[in-house]
């Protein structure tokens, strides 16, 4: 069991910090935008539905980077480390690690540039280098506008229909899953069978290598947590891929 897969239902946490800001420090905006640009320039987009001409975009980025890679990084963390770092601190760690590992930048370069910006206290940091390349920004904007839908035609028949009672499977836990841990081995009812199938992103995951039929599954809270440990009149609806159903 991975703690970060099984956050749902964790008890004893105290009140929610109702922080309404999207970013709590200015620097967080920039790592968000770097991640979004990487998704927009990812080489897997050559096989996407919008058919982006990704090979001809004048960027030196030649790898795959999707939500799956960001999530995989967070899910692979030592669980206590996961809770130590704030949301965008995890992003910064994962994305910097990726660029170092892939050789786009070196540790020495990063430390040298960090020293410059630290010396300046980040109040009025030195200007960024000048590299005009409108075609990169055009692709990034086009990705934001057209997206990367995983919707694909069905290649097999659905196993369940509306009203069926289903049991969620309990697959081996590896570095990436889209199955919320608290639903493992729980029983729910098929509420909607979504049309078509849905491809997930490339890379290792527990069962998402091929496009999946997807269901909206309705769970009674008491069936998940027990009558005593749940609130009355509550239901959870989860969109679950067929590969996670027994």
């Amino acid at each position, binding site marked *: 069991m991975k703690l970060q*897969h099984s*956050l*749902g*239902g*964790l*008890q004893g946490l*105290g009140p*929610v*910090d*109702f*922080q*309404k*800001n*999207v970013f709590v*420090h*200015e620097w967080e905006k*920039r*790592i*968000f*935008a*770097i991640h979004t*640009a990487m998704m927009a*320039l990812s080489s897997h987009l050559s096989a996407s539905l919008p058919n982006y001409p990704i090979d001809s975009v004048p960027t030196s980025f030649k790898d795959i980077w999707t939500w799956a890679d960001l999530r995989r990084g967070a899910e692979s963390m030592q669980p206590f480390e996961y809770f*130590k770092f704030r*949301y965008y601190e995890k992003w*910064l760690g994962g994305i*910097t690690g990726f660029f170092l590992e892939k050789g786009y*930048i070196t540790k020495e*370069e*990063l430390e040298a*540039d*960090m*020293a*410059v910006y*630290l010396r300046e206290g980040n109040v009025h940091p030195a200007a*960024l*280098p*000048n*590299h*005009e390349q409108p075609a*990169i920004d055009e692709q990034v904007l086009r*990705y*934001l*506008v*057209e*997206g990367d839908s*995983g*919707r694909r035609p069905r290649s097999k028949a659905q196993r369940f229909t509306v009203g069926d009672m289903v049991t969620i499977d309990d697959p081996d836990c590896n570095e990436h899953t*889209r199955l*919320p841990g*608290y639903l493992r081995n729980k029983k729910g009812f098929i509420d909607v069978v*979504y049309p078509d199938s*849905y491809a997930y992103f490339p890379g290792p995951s527990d069962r998402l290598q091929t496009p999946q039929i997807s269901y909206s599954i309705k769970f009674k809270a008491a069936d998940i947590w027990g009558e005593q440990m749940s*609130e009355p*009149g*509550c*239901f*959870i609806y989860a*969109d*679950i891929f067929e590969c996670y159903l027994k």
Partner: protein
Amino acid sequence: MLFEIALRIYSKTLSNPFVFPVMSIPGDELFAYSANRELESAAKVRALESLLIKKGVISSSTVDTVLHYFDRTMGPFNGARLVAKAWCDPDFKNLLLTDCNAACQAIEMPTGMSGAEGEIMKVAENTPDVHNLIICTLCSCYPWPTLGLPPYWYKDPTFRARAAREPRAVLEEFGLSIDPDVEIRAWDSSGQIRWWVLPERPAGSEGMDEAQLASLVTAEAMMGVAKVVL
């Protein structure tokens, strides 16, 4: 007097070993932060952006291009327009609840409503009998085109953990008391759908036009942690 203070500190130490930092406690070192935590992160992201520009991964303006897009084009103002229109036009409301992406296309919305993180959106309707709440227990899935980027509390592990088990208690903390007779539905997004909520139209808003109504609708109401009020 001094003895009393010393005794009080001593007994407090006994009942709570974390009053004084004791580095011999296993795991303590894991939660030690650098005193320059934010400065170092700011310098690191600046260094990273600078290097990525130098290496030709992104351009000098790529980061600002992304940020402007969410400042100006994609935000909760889009969702608010759809909600206001649905309150005024029953046919549009049906379309919104059946096919959110088609509803966005049916009226003049910015291009990109089916773009990143809005490829497939669905809307859950609040009624006098049902209150909906969106959550993402695995990460922070959120409908960017209609609601913009998610606030910190939505991404916070405490909210993600508690909203799944005790939504009524969490909503109380947000200042929203849901009648025990009202069913609560929490939509945990981990698949292909990005969910959001069609809130109830507030009483007393009968004479208002769509633009006035839209100005009442908050991101919190479209996440299900607030009601729309006049």
